């Protein structure tokens, strides 16, 4: 189960899949910035809708979108619930209990922040659903990230499902020795996990050791100027997207900070 979901990329042929990954990274960064700049709930909701339209256009299946939302939704609910409790400013006061004051503007601020967090969390799925790990790393290196760092990232992503399987196997091995992971109180349960954690770390270190030897034996780092099998090329549609994105970010910035329009 873990293996299937850690690599979020799904193969398809949509305009988002074809887009240069560098442009997608910029797009995601810009949309995130936009979520920070906007304070108007309607505009933030519009941004959230835009993100889901893009996810839909990326052919993200319902299960994947639900999966993407599941984690975020919990946070959003938590924010909506907790915000008014810790923010007693503004009027009208809707309810009060001792020092606790629930005000209407605080509720709206809570909802706005929740939607903002929703935008920030889901916008990354546009990139992750449509970009293979290889392209992602390639894009980062092309932007200027050192190749070693790119490779490290690629290897980490590549090994996530492997470690998922490893942890499953170690859990099984310890259950076969009578370990009941979910038994006991919080302290006992966290102690139970030592039996899983130690073999996992040891195996991970052993794997890392072997891997570094394997890389070296394939002449990793022999030349500073390495060549690449697959190169990235910006197409005219990528430049057009970039232009739209810049406009999308610059206009609200102008409106907010130069023209002092509340957005």
């Amino acid at each position, binding site marked *: *189960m873990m293996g*299937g979901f850690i690599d979020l990329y799904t193969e398809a042929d949509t305009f988002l899949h074809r887009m240069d990954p560098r442009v997608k990274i910029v797009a995601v960064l810009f949309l995130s910035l936009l979520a920070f700049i906007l304070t108007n709930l309607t505009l933030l909701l519009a941004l959230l809708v835009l993100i889901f339209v893009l996810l839909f256009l990326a052919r993200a299946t319902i299960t994947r979108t639900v999966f993407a939302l599941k984690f975020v939704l919990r946070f959003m609910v938590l924010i909506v619930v907790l915000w008014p409790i810790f923010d007693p400013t503004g009027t009208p006061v809707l309810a009060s209990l001792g020092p606790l004051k629930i005000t209407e503007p605080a509720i709206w601020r809570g909802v706005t922040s929740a939607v903002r967090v929703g935008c920030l969390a889901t916008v990354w799925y546009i990139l992750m659903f449509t970009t293979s790990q290889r392209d992602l790393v390639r894009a980062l290196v092309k932007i200027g990230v050192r190749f070693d760092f790119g490779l490290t990232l690629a290897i980490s992503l590549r090994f996530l499902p492997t470690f998922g399987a*490893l942890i499953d*196997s*170690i859990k*099984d*091995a*310890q*259950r*076969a*020795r*009578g*370990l*009941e992971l979910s038994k006991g109180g919080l302290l006992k349960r966290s102690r139970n996990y*030592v*039996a899983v*954690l*130690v*073999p996992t770390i*040891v*195996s991970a270190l*052993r794997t890392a050791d072997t891997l570094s030897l394997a890389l070296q034996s394939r002449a990793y780092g022999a030349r500073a100027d390495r060549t690449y099998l697959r190169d990235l090329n910006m197409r005219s549609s990528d430049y057009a997207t970039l232009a739209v994105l810049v406009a999308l970010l610059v206009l609200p910035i102008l409106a907010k900070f130069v023209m002092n329009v509340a957005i």
Partner: protein
Amino acid sequence: MIPSAHGIPQEEKIISTRNLKFTYEGGVQALHGLNLDIRHGDYVAIVGGNGSGKTTLAKTLNGLLKPTSGTVVVNGRPTSEQKVAALAKVVGYAFQNPDHQLFCSSVEDEVRFGPQNLGYSEQEVRQKVERAIEAMNLDKLRSVAPLSLRLGERRRVSIASVIAMDPQVLILDEPTTGLDSGESLELMDRLKRLNGEGKTIILITHDMKVVAEHARRVIVMANGRMILDSDCRGVFSDLAILGESSLEPPPVTKLAHRLAKHGISPDVVSAEELVVQLMKSGGGG
């Protein structure tokens, strides 16, 4: 000499599966309706190519995997009604990679972990640990950190940590992989002794030499099915079956097959037997 599986009286069986099917979450069906009985004191080898379903079968026998359909009955009760921790008292499972089990700072602590989980009293734990340490010849290593040991020793520690729970059945997944011949011989010798003391042993392996020298019963798996359940001789003389499951008979059996036209019986499974055969045919002509 092994009676057919279904002829075994109920009380002699420790494990029995009926129409056991197992399908992984992703939809891969790994077991296609297995009927298998294992008796107290058996020494069974489960052999087959990679992906034939050996390990999946073994994991259903101690409840780590519950059947998708059909039943696995251990000691008279279906595994679907028993917790893995409870089944661990009856069916011990030593994983292929010992490093998946080892985490304590001394061999002795490692061996203690299982019986302590099962809630034995301190005195019982001590007894069981001593027996397990003795059985796997770990006395000199008892205060050493398991992870600093050689693979052969780590494997013995992981097996000892399972034996310490005193299970009636011991499942070993590829116990000789990665061991040199000396380590392998010693380990197999120790398992033989445990079997002599009444432990039921189930060996999952590729090593046909080990199978030929130790197992009394061999189950050949291919594509999630049992294609043969017989004694060693039966398995190794059936080259067609072996080919189907991408297995090779041990070298001595292969040699006997090639010498068949010189009057050597092809069902030889050990060097000693071949010597006897050669003496006979040499003496005769």
